[in-house]
């Protein structure tokens, strides 16, 4: 644990001249959970996509501490080099599990496929790993050969998380991972994420509009509005002592339970 895992500065991105990210900077250390909150269109998802390489920023640096070669500015890499240097260091959990799963493959194959891509060849061992990951995300390992479309939304989301974590990433980006789920299923997923992050020393960037989720899961919180970071700090500081007008509005708009 020598330094930050991720350092972003001066990140800018516009869509058709409309700014989506304006001079965004952040750093993240191994094992830290950072939540990004803000209304739709504030740039949260664009930021995740820039880190994930789905979207190319116009300016700025995204430095990531790769296992292969240490700190690398991801914005300077072409797709092939990016894939080689990043390996399995980075995961992405989509809001809709159907975007992150292979629906025509069984649950076991969904977990095994990233291992195959990483060069694992021993079928029995891959299957055993898939079984143990199903158990870790609280899916009955007896359903290893079922297709994900026969799973509930909550189970699909847990399967997507297993598919992401099986290759032992250092950072996982999550876009509203509890978004489409019932409240009771959300709680189960939050508990699971919290335990996995602690056990695996995993860093997470979590985009959410749910301040309750952010409070329970995140060490640090960043508030975005119209492409800018307007406030950031420890999660409980930002939520209990918000300084910026927009953050105060956001916090005061939440129903107290």
């Amino acid at each position, binding site marked *: 644990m020598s330094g930050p895992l991720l350092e972003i500065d001066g990140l800018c991105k516009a869509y058709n001249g409309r700014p989506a990210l304006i001079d965004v900077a952040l750093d993240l*250390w191994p094992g*830290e959970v950072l939540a990004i909150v803000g209304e739709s269109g504030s740039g949260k998802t664009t930021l995740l996509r820039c880190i994930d390489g789905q979207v190319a920023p116009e300016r700025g640096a995204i430095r990531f501490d790769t296992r292969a070669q240490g700190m690398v500015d991801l914005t300077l890499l072409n797709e092939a080099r990016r894939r080689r240097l990043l390996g399995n260091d980075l995961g992405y959990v989509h809001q809709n599990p159907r975007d992150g799963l292979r629906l025509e493959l069984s649950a076991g194959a969904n977990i095994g496929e990233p291992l195959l891509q990483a060069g694992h060849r021993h079928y029995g061992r891959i299957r055993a790993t898939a079984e143990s990951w199903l158990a870790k995300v609280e899916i009955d390992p007896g359903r290893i050969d079922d297709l994900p479309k026969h799973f509930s939304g909550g189970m699909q989301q847990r399967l997507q998380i297993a598919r992401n974590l099986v290759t032992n990433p250092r950072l996982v980006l999550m876009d509203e991972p509890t978004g489409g789920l019932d409240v009771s299923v959300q*709680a*189960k997923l*939050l*508990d699971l994420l*919290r335990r996995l992050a*602690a056990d695996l020393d995993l860093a997470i960037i979590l985009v959410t509009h749910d301040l309750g989720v952010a*409070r*329970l*899961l995140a*060490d*640090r919180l960043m508030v975005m509005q119209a492409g800018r970071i307007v406030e950031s*700090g*420890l999660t*409980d*500081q930002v939520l*209990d*002592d918000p*300084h*910026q*007008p927009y953050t*105060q*509005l956001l916090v*005061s708009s939440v129903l107290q339970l």
Partner: protein
Amino acid sequence: MTMPSTTPLLEAKGVSKSFTLHARDRLRLAVLSEIDLAVRPGECVVLDGPSGAGKSTLMRTLYGNYRADGGAILVQRDGETRDLVRATPREILALRRDTIGYISQFLRVIPRVPTIEIVAEPLTALGIDREEARKRAASLLARMAIPERFWALPPVTFSGGEQQRVNIARGLIAGHPVLLVDEPTASLDSVNRQTVLALLQEARDAGAAIVAICHDDVTRAALATRYYKIPLRVQAT
């Protein structure tokens, strides 16, 4: 009682805190100004002052939950002095893990997590083995008179007094040298109040520096080594 001459474990110097309410025409509320408070090992300072004087605000500021406007909050950690007002989020998290404990009035936890895990968590966060952490959590819960059949259940369905005892167990288990305690006995019956009081006295006598808010006279008298009256604020214009 003689004044201990050791270095304070926690020291507020000239701490001020105000809130600006943007939705109310940037109304500025000054709550704390020029707070000086030093707490040494083995001391328990009970905060005094009427409701609204800023007792809870001071506690939360000392924990880094509220961000002080000015001054310094010096905390001893590993023989070094850290200033909470200038510390980065990572440094504050580290201080909270092993140095400053805060026992709030209410338990706030992830739904569905079993009580014993909630109590053991501050120990596992320090790198203590999960089995050992659970063992120590079990013995503390037993001392708190939380029936063993409840340990595997999440505390949401517990009574107010049971939740408060779980909260106190979680707050005390890691043996933080600095403890901030907000109304520890508010919803407890006299037997449980005695238990909590004894635990806090043990922590104090073992050398913890404690700051407490407490309205119950029996607990105040038994716990306090001195009182600190929050000074009247200078309202800025």
